[in-house]
């Protein structure tokens, strides 16, 4: 069958899955007074439509920042404004100032879900299609398989179409950035990434690799001449993009400052709720938040993040190839997730996107990580009433991806790039590392299924009401730590083909 028809069927299938999930409940459904992220997005439409730009980020009588105040950069606000204009055309009640608080109806739900789908169709899905076709290798059948698994990643679908957010926009823009850099269009890539940054500040997790890659590339091209020209071009693009996005706020420095204060809330503490990162997991043993002062918490997390990110960034600076770039994206976002300040569990999506890029190259590890990342958000899905979509999409993704990539058959030591581990375990030469990895994978999947079942079916012990979410977080944390170590080792080991070439020479 021709490729275009296969691709269309793939995309249609993934869109169907997305819409199917969106028919389910959303976060905060029917839960006054605060509701959830869905109400937050609706409220931002109300605020941006009815109030002038100067008041969007300020606490005024009309804009109560305690009730879902805007805490994303301006591009989100503009997007909400656009949606609000359309909402006003359909039913003005949806964005009426003050009166529309907590508005819930099936027609409104349809509208909100439709906005997510349209944004996805315009930004995320085309980027994914182009990436799979131009920047991944293999036969066209393999590319279609990659596309299918890429678009079926359950975590993003469940968060965007279930819990309700617009991660598809920021991740899609970042993906466009990666795509452009892969095709050699550096200025366009940096513009796309700046737009992503201006949509959600969490994209800063990806900023370091972009910076190091472009800097390294410019240095390689010679700092006197083409390299410098490239650097200047990129810098100008970034500054202009930022200026355009922040235009209404640049007239008054206090405006810009307030926006920055809203998008980087340093007063909120090391972590909130149960997250699968180091601090929350450490909290099980030592109560960090009470032991250290707020300032020292900030410095500690800053230092740890820097330490974790440094090796991969330096490696990327010295070797600015696309392969290193992809690995650095994974490492950087994982490091930030694990050690940074005030991390939410949804931020794992920032690490999942680069791992999706590696589906073709390292299928087993990628599938394992993507499954673990969806699993780490399971308590959130349970709270939103998304159990059934969670189970169905995870199962479908797991079965489909392991089948399509023959991940379990193509898991020899070479294919898993376990060369670095082999060096570490040199004292045990007879150890079959590939077999160990496969068994760990099986056990891990079974454990995830068992934990899901127990969280749903059993009540927690009375003295520890958060027992299951904590268990889930710690389990996921161990996976993420292992993934970070693995991808760092892969980034530092030379690709196997080069090794065999050296041997031949």
């Amino acid at each position, binding site marked *: *069958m*021709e490729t275009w028809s296969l691709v269309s069927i793939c995309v*249609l299938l993934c869109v169907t899955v997305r*819409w*199917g999930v969106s028919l389910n409940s959303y976060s905060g459904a029917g839960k006054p007074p605060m509701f959830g992220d869905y109400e937050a997005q609706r409220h931002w439409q109300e605020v941006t439509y009815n109030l002038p730009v100067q008041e969007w980020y300020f606490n005024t009588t009309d804009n109560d920042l305690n009730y879902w105040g805007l805490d994303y950069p301006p591009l989100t606000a503009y997007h909400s404004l656009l949606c609000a204009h359309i909402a006003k055309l359909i039913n003005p009640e949806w964005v009426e100032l003050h009166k529309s608080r907590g508005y819930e109806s*099936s027609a409104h739900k349809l509208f909100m879900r439709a906005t997510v789908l349209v944004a996805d169709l315009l930004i995320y899905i085309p980027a994914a299609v182009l990436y799979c076709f131009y920047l991944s290798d293999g036969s066209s059948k393999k590319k279609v398989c990659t596309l299918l698994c890429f678009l079926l990643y359950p975590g993003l679908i469940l968060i965007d179409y279930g819990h309700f957010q617009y991660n598809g926009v920021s991740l899609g823009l970042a993906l466009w950035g990666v795509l452009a850099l892969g095709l050699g269009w550096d200025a366009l890539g940096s513009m796309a990434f700046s737009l992503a940054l201006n949509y959600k500040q969490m994209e800063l997790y990806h900023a370091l690799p972009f910076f190091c890659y472009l800097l390294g590339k410019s240095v390689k091209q010679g700092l006197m001449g083409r390299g410098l020209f490239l650097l200047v071009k990129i810098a100008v693009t970034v500054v202009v993009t930022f200026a355009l996005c922040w235009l209404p706020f640049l007239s008054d420095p206090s405006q810009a400052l307030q926006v920055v204060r809203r998008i980087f809330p340093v007063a909120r503490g090391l972590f909130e709720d149960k997250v699968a990162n180091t601090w929350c997991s450490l909290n099980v043993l030592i109560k960090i938040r009470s032991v250290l002062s707020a300032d020292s918490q900030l410095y500690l997390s800053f230092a740890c993040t820097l330490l974790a990110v440094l090796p991969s960034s330096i490696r990327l600076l010295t070797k600015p190839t696309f392969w290193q770039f992809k690995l650095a994206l994974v490492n950087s976002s994982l490091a930030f997730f694990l050690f940074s300040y005030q991390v939410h569990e949804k931020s794992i999506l920032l690490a999942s996107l680069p791992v999706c890029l590696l589906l073709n190259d390292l299928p087993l590890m990628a599938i394992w990580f993507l499954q673990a990342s969806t699993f780490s958000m399971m308590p959130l899905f349970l709270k939103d009433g998304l159990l059934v979509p969670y189970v*169905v999409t995870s199962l479908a993704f797991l*079965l489909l991806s392991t089948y399509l990539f023959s991940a379990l058959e193509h898991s020899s030591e070479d294919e898993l790039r376990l060369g670095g581990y082999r060096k570490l375990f040199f004292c045990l030469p007879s150890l079959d590392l590939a077999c160990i990895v496969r068994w760990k994978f099986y056990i891990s999947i079974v454990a995830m299924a068992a934990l899901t079942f127990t969280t749903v079916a059993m009540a927690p012990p009375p003295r520890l009401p958060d027992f299951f979410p904590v268990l889930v977080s710690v389990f996921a944390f161990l996976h993420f730590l292992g993934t970070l170590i693995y991808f760092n080792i892969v980034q530092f080991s030379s690709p196997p083909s080069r090794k065999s070439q050296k041997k031949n020479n």
Partner: protein
Amino acid sequence: RAAELSCLCLSLSDSHSTDFEVHRNWLAITHSLPLSRWYYENSSEWTLDYPPLFAWFEFGLSHVARRFDPDMLDVQRLQHRSPPTVLFQRLSVVCSDLCCRCVREQKPSRDLLKRPSFILAVLLLWNFGLLVVDHVHFQYNGFLFGVLLLSVAKHLQSRHLQGALLFAVLLNLKHIYLYVAPAYGIYLLRSFCFTQDNTDSSVRWSSFSPARLAALGVIVTSVCVVSFGPFVLLGQLPQVLSRLFPFKRGLCHAYWAPNAWALYNVLDKTLVTLGVRLKLLQEAELPKASMTGGLVQESQHALLPSISPSVTLVCTLLSVLPAALSIWLRPRGARGFLRCLVLCALGSFLFGWHVHEKAVLMAVLPLSILAVESREDAGIFLVLATTGHYSLFPLLFTPAELPIKILLMLMFTLYSFTALTSLFSGHGSLLHPLEVVYLLGLVVVAIACEIVYPLTPWQQTLPFLPLLATSVYCALGVCYSFVRLYVILLRQEVKSKQL
């Protein structure tokens, strides 16, 4: 194909329909009431109108249902819709579907190549009609069609007794399969009871085998006894039959199935309107417009003669007769039987009494088997499947379901077109240009009905208009496919006569 099966579960969404309530009610009836009251219970408007074996199936399900939510089994609780209820019912459809699709996978195809069998598997498993009717609208057709196809498979394998048994069971699960009973009857009589043919394929009366006939009889009667037995003993047979065959429901369903009677109705209406405009008729003399009221009831035609159940029976039998005769006079083995089956299903669909549009699936699914083997059949399949599936659109009418039905329809149509084209590549396109124009016209009708119409003022005054348009447009396609299938059959007859 575990991956595909799990993808099927995606349809577990929040949408409801009347059939959902119907099946919940039947769970309640079979669980809480004694056998003698199953066919008398009418506190809900959705009375039990499937044969007893299906009632036993619901009874079995109700025991599992008890674990999910005991309240749903209370007969008096109409419209009960708690989340566990929804979950359970959808799971039951999925599970029964899985069982039968696994069974269907074992269908042998000695003479089919690997690739056609894959295409066939996808066309059957992912049939848009089944997905939409079963999983979104809610019915149990998946496993019923599984039984039908298994029965056909047994015949293709020449295991006729098993095939007959399965069909008897199927008839007792859902009596709509009476549509294809003539095909089974004639085929088994001719090819099974007469063990040998003459050299020119005509009947050899001497080779009649009473033993085989007796075996068939035993199988069929024993199944019927098991299913109807308790009710005959209780003397309830007339009540059961009146529930199974409700002739008071009117010639057409609330939404007209795209069959010949839909065209007849439209003709009637146009003549009436023309007559009134041209002042040939008095408006006061005519009966009130009731067929377009969207209700299930008996109604009269205004100008053309009204159709009664016996008329429909006669028309159906007439339409099916040539096909039945052909496999009697010149049986072509199991393939001929399959073709006759499709023709019977389609003929009954076109001329039957109170046909539901979902019955078109009974013709589409067996035709898939023929479609992967012959070019012409593939072309007819594309027209019939696309038209038939589009006619199912009005089943899902909420705005939330609109993207789902469009997406699924696009996927299935795209797949069937590209797969069948690549299978039969090299001899030009599968479809005649006029057919392509007709199918593209479906898109126009779709846009007009789903998007343009709700924005016009006609929605208040003529609410039935989009349904009417869909029925009539699809009826043309269905009738056309029927005619073409007959042409192929008759052409085969003529060719074999010449030989």
